[in-house]
């Protein structure tokens, strides 16, 4: 049976080259990187090599990279760790952040931190004006994701970074606390420029399994001299910022994976931009009452999201799965909480419409033939489900 995986925003397959580099550390080279003997030192070397690989891609110093178990942990560490270290009283986030930011913000709120959630326009983009108006004297952190995982829109990180720099100059003169800038770059690493100095970020989170690395490993870039208190206590690993024996094989995999995707960034982005455009046009022209969500241009090459009127997302996914296609949806029925996607809600899509949400996310190996197949079968599935509906 045809099998077409279009859920790369959920996770990506492990690159065989990456696996090969990981294998020794799952077998013979089992040492604990904190040990002084040769076994340990081999592991230490491998971790530091990986740190260098990540630092190269982010254009930062090696010691500014902290390995974690995933991006969720990195995001938790950045937000909670900064608040604890600065005793900050106010943070600003966007409403379309991943749950690990929203829920961490909720947690901080319970502890007395004020949280401002920005507004977005109908595409999901935040505005500098709204951001500026939200800043308070006690603000210590702004956290805005680079690429939204549900719609693929790209937030204007460069402008936000520049703006925060300017604001911080004024605040310094006034004796106000510095505002730190965090971005969840999980969906951006492989396609967009992630030079932390260009972006002007103080924290950046990433996760290996989104770019053909293994699951269970992520990293947080922490700019030098940024106050941060670790959220997991124990040994002194990761410069005292993340206790726990390092996942050596995972870290090696992350390093290899980021190195590889960075070297193919432009080529893959170009290819996927073309395929995405082709898929969007194909779907919009072959199915009635379909809307593309997110911005028409300011979008990452790999994530496409539609709302299809008169169908329900989970049924759509089950039918697509029957045809060998793997996608995802922000429908209430597909979430454990039975809540429609907070992202679609934030951009003003009513629950009745987000009921029919479909996300297809492409990968480096996606082909035009696969997209052709999707364009061929999707209209029939939509037609069938619409016929089943009482509104037909």
């Amino acid at each position: 049976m045809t099998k077409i995986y279009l859920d790369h925003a959920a996770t990506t397959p492990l690159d065989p080259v990456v696996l090969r580099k990981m294998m020794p550390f799952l077998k013979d080279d089992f040492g604990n990187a904190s040990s002084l003997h040769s076994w340990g030192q081999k592991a230490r070397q491998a971790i530091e090599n990986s740190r260098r690989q990540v630092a190269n891609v982010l254009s930062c110093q090696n010691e500014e990279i902290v390995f974690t178990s995933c991006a969720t942990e990195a995001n938790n560490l950045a937000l909670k760790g900064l608040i604890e270290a600065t005793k900050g009283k106010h943070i600003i986030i966007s409403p379309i952040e991943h749950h690990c930011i929203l829920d961490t913000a909720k947690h901080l709120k319970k502890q007395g931190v004020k949280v401002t959630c920005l507004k977005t326009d109908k595409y999901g983009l935040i505005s500098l004006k709204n951001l500026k108006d939200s800043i308070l004297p006690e603000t210590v952190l702004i956290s805005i994701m680079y690429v939204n995982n549900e719609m693929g829109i790209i937030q204007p990180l460069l402008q936000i970074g520049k703006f925060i720099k300017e604001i911080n100059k004024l605040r310094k003169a006034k004796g106000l606390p510095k505002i730190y800038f965090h971005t969840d770059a999980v969906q951006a690493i492989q396609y967009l420029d992630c030079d932390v100095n260009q972006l002007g970020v103080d924290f950046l989170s990433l996760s290996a399994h989104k770019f053909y690395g293994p699951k269970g490993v992520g990293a947080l870039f922490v700019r030098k001299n940024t106050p941060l208190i670790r959220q997991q206590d124990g040994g002194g690993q990761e410069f005292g910022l993340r206790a726990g024996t390092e996942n050596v094989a995972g870290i090696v995999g992350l390093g290899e994976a980021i190195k590889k995707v960075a070297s193919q960034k432009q080529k893959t982005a170009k290819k996927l931009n073309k395929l995405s455009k082709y898929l969007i046009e194909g779907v919009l022209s072959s199915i009635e009452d379909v809307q593309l969500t997110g911005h028409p241009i300011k979008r990452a090459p790999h994530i496409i999201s539609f709302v299809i009127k008169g169908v329900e997302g989970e049924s759509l996914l089950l039918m697509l799965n029957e045809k060998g296609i793997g996608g995802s949806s922000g429908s209430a029925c597909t979430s454990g909480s039975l809540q429609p996607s907070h992202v679609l809600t934030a951009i003003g899509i009513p629950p009745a419409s987000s009921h029919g949400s479909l996300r297809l996310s492409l990968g480096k190996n996606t082909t035009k033939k696969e997209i052709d197949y999707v364009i061929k079968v999707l209209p029939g599935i939509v037609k069938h489900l619409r016929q089943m509906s009482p509104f037909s």
Partner: protein
Amino acid sequence: MTTNSFYSKKVLDHFKNPRNFGKIENPDGVATVGNPICGDVMKIYIKVGKKNNKEYIDNIKFQTLGCGAAIATSSIATELVKGKSLDLARKITNRQIIVGLEGLPPVKIHCSLLATEAIKKAIDNYREKK
């Protein structure tokens, strides 16, 4: 057939091959119920027959806009009550639906309640019109 550990084989079977799906022109009873929790909508049409002075569901059809479980519960509910007396059909429980489908994920139990509600309301609609 692809496997799916979230849903039982029976749920997937009813989802893919829904029984009694469609519309009845000039139905004796009809009801539309909606699930405010997730947005699913279910519509049941019935045709009532009479045998030995007892009214029974002679024909039943459904239309559903909803998830796999919403479609499967509609399908099996219609199958369970077709040919049954109105009194018996009205007593259908969501337990019967869940057992008939060889289980439902906990988060989908509300779909089975929607199906029983739709059947009860369609029968009530017929009785009100009489």
